[in-house]
């Protein structure tokens, strides 16, 4: 892909002390027999200390692959390119390290996985090994990343099981994943992710597989731990309601690109991209009970051999032939904290 000169880096906060992870022009391509699948195609993101960045998008928008790319754990044949700069403190000094340049199976990146950046997944039943105890799997992470013995690791693990609100932590420690309920499993997963005090926690749809009452508990837990442990969170979901509850800033993804990037207030009250607006309209509301709920026509295309121009072109009601489908769409700055990837912003704003 040719470089787009007009592209503006998402929030220009490079020198900001609060920034701990800066992703620039992240591309994750899968070279398949049928062609190149561009799952993530030039994403810029900035993560600030103690804040939550929400990433929202439909299935297939590349949000999950994007976060897996940060840890370089994309399934083969995925290839990750771009800058993934992580700020970490070593021996009292702060330093930047570019994860994108590390060997995906090397020791350096393994030091980051689980220790600096850790991850929780959608289905805790599948994400835990079913033939090892919860305790075994949690202490494994502790033993890899710190110089403690088995006994101390067990003490730390149980300590974290208590922190995530597990009842009978001593007993749970020796149990297998299938002996726990869905919510308990996800709590154990969170304990496992946090036991090495990571700077960043990536939560990949952590509540999608849970039932609604448990969802709220898990979301509260993540928010609570984020504050007490001063962890930054990258929260992936397709649920805008969850975004509202969790995020400080939001990136809306579509077809491997961030198409709108703003703080959570602006997202709900001043979203400009037609796709974001359509997403917001598709939320059921108690106030509007009459009529059918809006939905976005069509589905996300497969990001392979796409025509030039805006990815949302075929589904967008503002789309204009010869304008939207000619060139790659630049990421335009609307104001300090609001970026949109659309060329018809003036028309959209005029319509209100």
């Amino acid at each position: 892909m040719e470089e787009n000169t007009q592209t503006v880096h998402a929030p220009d906060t490079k020198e900001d002390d609060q920034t701990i992870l800066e992703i620039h022009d992240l591309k994750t391509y899968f070279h398949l027999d049928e062609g190149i699948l561009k799952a993530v195609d030039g994403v810029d993101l900035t993560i600030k200390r103690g804040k939550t960045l929400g990433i929202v998008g439909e299935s297939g928008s590349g949000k999950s692959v994007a976060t897996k790319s940060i840890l370089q754990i994309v399934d083969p044949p995925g290839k990750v390119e771009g800058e993934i700069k992580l700020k970490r403190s070593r021996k009292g000094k702060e330093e930047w390290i570019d994860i994108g340049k590390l060997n995906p199976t090397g020791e350096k990146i393994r030091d980051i996985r689980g220790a600096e950046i850790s991850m929780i997944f959608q289905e805790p039943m599948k994400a835990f090994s079913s033939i090892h105890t919860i305790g075994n799997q949690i202490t494994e992470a502790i033993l890899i990343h710190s110089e403690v013995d088995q006994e101390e690791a067990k003490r730390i693990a149980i300590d974290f099981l208590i922190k995530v609100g597990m009842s009978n932590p001593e007993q749970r420690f020796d149990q297998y994943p299938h002996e726990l309920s869905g919510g308990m499993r996800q709590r154990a997963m969170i304990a496992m992710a946090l036991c090495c005090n990571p700077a960043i926690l990536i939560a990949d749809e952590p509540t999608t597989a849970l039932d609604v009452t448990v969802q709220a508990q898990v979301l509260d837990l993540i928010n609570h731990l984020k504050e007490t442990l001063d962890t930054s969170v990258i929260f992936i979901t397709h649920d805008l309601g969850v975004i509202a509850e969790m995020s400080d800033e939001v990136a809306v993804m579509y077809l491997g690109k961030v198409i709108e990037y703003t703080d959570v207030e602006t997202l709900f009250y001043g979203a400009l991209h037609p796709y974001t607006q359509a997403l917001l309209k598709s939320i059921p509301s108690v106030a509007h009970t009459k009529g059918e709920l809006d939905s976005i026509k069509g589905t996300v295309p497969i990001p392979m051999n796409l025509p030039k121009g805006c990815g949302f072109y075929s589904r967008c009601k503002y789309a204009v032939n010869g304008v939207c489908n000619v060139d790659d769409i630049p990421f335009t700055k609307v104001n300090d904290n609001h970026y949109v990837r659309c060329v018809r912003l003036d028309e959209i704003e005029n319509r209100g």
Partner: protein
Amino acid sequence: MIHYIGHRLLQLIPLLIAISIIAFVIIQLPPGDYLTTYINQLELSGTKVSESAIVALERQYGLDKPMYQQYFIWMKNILLHGDFGRSFSWNEPVSKVIGERLVLTMVISIFTLIVTWLIAIPIGIYSAVRQYSVLDYIFSFIGFIGLAVPNFLIALVIVYFVFDTTGIAITGLFSPEYADAPWSFAKVLDLLQRIWVPVLIIATAGTAGLIRTMRGMLLDELSKQYVVTARAKGVAEKKLLFKYPVRVAVNPLISTIGWTLPTIISGEAIVSIVLNLPTTGPVLLDAFRTQDMYLAGSFILILSILTVIGTLLSDILLAWVDPRIRFGGVEE
């Protein structure tokens, strides 16, 4: 765990009774019996068999009684005296005909099983981890040949080739001087030297199949979420591979031990004939041909019991390595 094993052992009792009945009925199913074959042979050789001689023979062999009585007599002798009846064609007790052959067969089987696993599992793991690599294709190619070529043909080719180039006959399990000698330390050593040829030949097809199974199982596991989780924790690739997906992929193989035991004993009759092995296979084939009912019936019974024991063993092993089975299934 003890509770689980006890429970499984109790379940075996009715199963074994049913098996013994079925074994007996099966050998009675073909028309005629050993006497028909025997009388045919006598008449072919020119001896006239009189009606009274036939009745006398029937009484001698106990064939004049109704089937269920024959069954009970047979079972009573097995349970109380360990007597499986007499083989008509060998004119010896069944236990004597089978005895040593069964032991030798089991030695070959166990060696074959070990060789199969030792070769197949590492290759299977390699082929899965380096899917579509040059070596993976080579292993797959050899594997398909191993699956497609019948073992007895491989045996024939190897026996011919070795004899043609070195003049040594590699058939049989013992050198000629030990073949009829009583058991001694030297005889065991002789056996251990010669056993590898039949073991490797019999292992070919099994190994080829197991490589495919292991490769497929592991490929399934490698793409599972728990592998990604472990990687995201920072576990090193090699440790991760053996601790998680390999452990899970091996479990189904353990459950195949149950039916590997009897197939290795009965399924290699032709290889045993080609290699002139003093194993059970050729005798079993012969017993069916001549309707030597107590010999055939005892074989079926012993093979079935081995299957049952094998299954029990693999179930216990599986429960030991897989907590989901130990606790009675996954709740979802």
